[in-house]
């Protein structure tokens, strides 16, 4: 089961550049929320603030409140603890090049000291089935390296890797943008199936994708959250003119 995220007055900077301004948002549990907007509008930065990956950059800074359930992730917990509860899938697949498929998928557990072989095996199978990759790789789990798969398979393996630690939230930063259309549709199907078990936030450039998989959509522009509403409303009758301009393709 997933957990809801509450964001209050979130501001973020890279050095002296103010990249996110006064974001206020509630992301409901067990639903998929899409974030759309033109390049550089801050949606990736926002998502990285949700699992404190924003901080890995030494000149990055964030203020405000982000609550996962009742936990203030900036004040009540360490970044490492938060990232174990929030999974992340990146824009480009990033498997660990020296590890096999099996080791890649369970790396979140193994690198955190988990040793029980039986549970690791079960987790690997479960996650790969959730990511719809099990049938394709089940015979080569320990023989093939994670980097030897095709782009679409690698990304699904990265999704399996994120799911293996049983997170409550899954963040996806344009997960299909580097992939071919067939892989893209496979990943969209995945998101559709997974959203009942996890809270999913998916950043996308592709409005049709947002419309297909997400119940709610937020529109970012120049570091601000312009509008956040049900997907149906955003795409048929947006409240703000800027949203309407973006949807109809007048810019971006």
């Amino acid at each position, binding site marked *: 089961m997933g957990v809801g995220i509450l964001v*209050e007055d979130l501001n973020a900077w890279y050095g002296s550049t103010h990249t996110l301004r006064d974001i206020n948002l509630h992301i409901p549990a067990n639903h998929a929320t899409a974030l759309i907007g033109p390049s550089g509008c801050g949606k990736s930065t926002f998502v990285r603030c949700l699992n404190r990956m924003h901080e890995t950059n030494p000149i990055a800074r964030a203020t405000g409140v982000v609550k996962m*359930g009742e936990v203030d992730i900036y004040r009540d917990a360490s970044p490492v603890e938060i990232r174990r509860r929030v999974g992340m899938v990146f824009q480009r697949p990033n498997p660990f090049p020296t590890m096999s498929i099996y080791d890649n998928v369970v790396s979140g557990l193994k690198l955190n000291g988990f040793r029980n072989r039986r549970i690791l095996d079960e987790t690997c199978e479960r996650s790969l089935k959730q990511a719809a990759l099990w049938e394709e790789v089940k015979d080569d789990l320990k023989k093939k390296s994670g980097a030897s798969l095709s782009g679409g398979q690698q990304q699904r393996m990265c999704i399996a890797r994120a799911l293996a630690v049983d997170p409550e939230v899954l963040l996806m930063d344009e997960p299909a943008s580097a992939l071919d259309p067939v892989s893209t549709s496979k990943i969209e199907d995945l998101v559709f199936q997974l959203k009942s078990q996890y809270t999913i936030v998916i950043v996308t450039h592709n409005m049709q994708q947002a419309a297909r998989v997400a119940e709610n959509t937020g529109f970012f522009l120049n570091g601000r959250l312009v509008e956040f509403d049900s997907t149906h409303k955003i795409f048929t009758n947006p409240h703000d003119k800027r949203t309407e301009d973006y949807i109809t393709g007048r810019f971006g």
Partner: protein
Amino acid sequence: MTTEREPGSPVSMRDRMLELQPNIEGKGGVAEVGGPLSPIRAYLSQRGSGRVGDKTFAGVVLVCACSIFAIVLFILTILVFRSRLSLLQFGWRFFTRQAWNPVSGNFGALPFIYGTLATSLLALVIAVPLALGVAIFLTELCPRVLRAPISFLTELLAAIPSVVYGLWGIFVLVPLIRDVVGPFLVKTFGWTGLFVGPNFGVGILTASIILSIMILPIISSLTRDIMQAVPNSQREGVLALGATKWEMIRIGVLRNSRIGIVGAVMLGLGRALGETMAVTMVIGNQPAIAKSLFAPGYTLASVIANEFSEATGDLYLSALIEIGLALFLVTIVVNAIARLMVWAVTRGAPARVG
């Protein structure tokens, strides 16, 4: 649209959710805390934040990094400490006096300074044009297929140990200088006055030749790196004006890499100043200052290598250690200037080691 929150009122997550985005889907189904704990979630939630591990790790690697400073400080301190006898006795004049008499306790380092400078500078005179030639050949003229093998071969030269160069020097180069090259030089260049006196094969000339072979790889490979760092736009610009290949190299590449090449040459100088074994084996080991290149000589490094284990008496040992201290300081200064120059051209990319 987002609504304004009344300032000062405590609010639960559920209430906040109802205020914000009243029309979104799913507001009724929020879980305040995460679902039932699976064994994995249970395990991970009781794992620590890793803060202790991070701090320990950072501390350990910091200590190891500072060990580099410690090594330099250690060498400096111990050399100064153990040479204090000689420092106090002779002061600065140690480096201007010519005597080297262990029996009477009269020590002066001038002959060794002369030997070191003469061999190093002569080695540079021989090595730099050759190294430049090789660098130009490999970067601009060499067919692509031959580039890797030939550069590999020049780097093999750097892998040959000093003592093997010395061995080859004693049994191959010395007879060559004595019997073939020496008479030739006397015949053609005798008028310069540099080739007078008896020629036993060992001496400044032989040592310089061996040194030049040894410092050539480092000058050439660094020069190659620097030349390759010059952007292609420079080359193309000069070629577009109708220059020949050599003119393109001269104007487009060499002119831009002047500072870096000087730095590479200085690194070669630094290496030549400190080279010990091969020089000791072919220089004749006599503390004399003579104009002739056939004369035997002595360098700062060689005198230490030769006489250290037989040094009786504290003053003798202290004088030798002071020579080591001088060598240490000089090579540090030369290398520091050289690295700065190379860094200025390659902009801090990790320097080639060796």
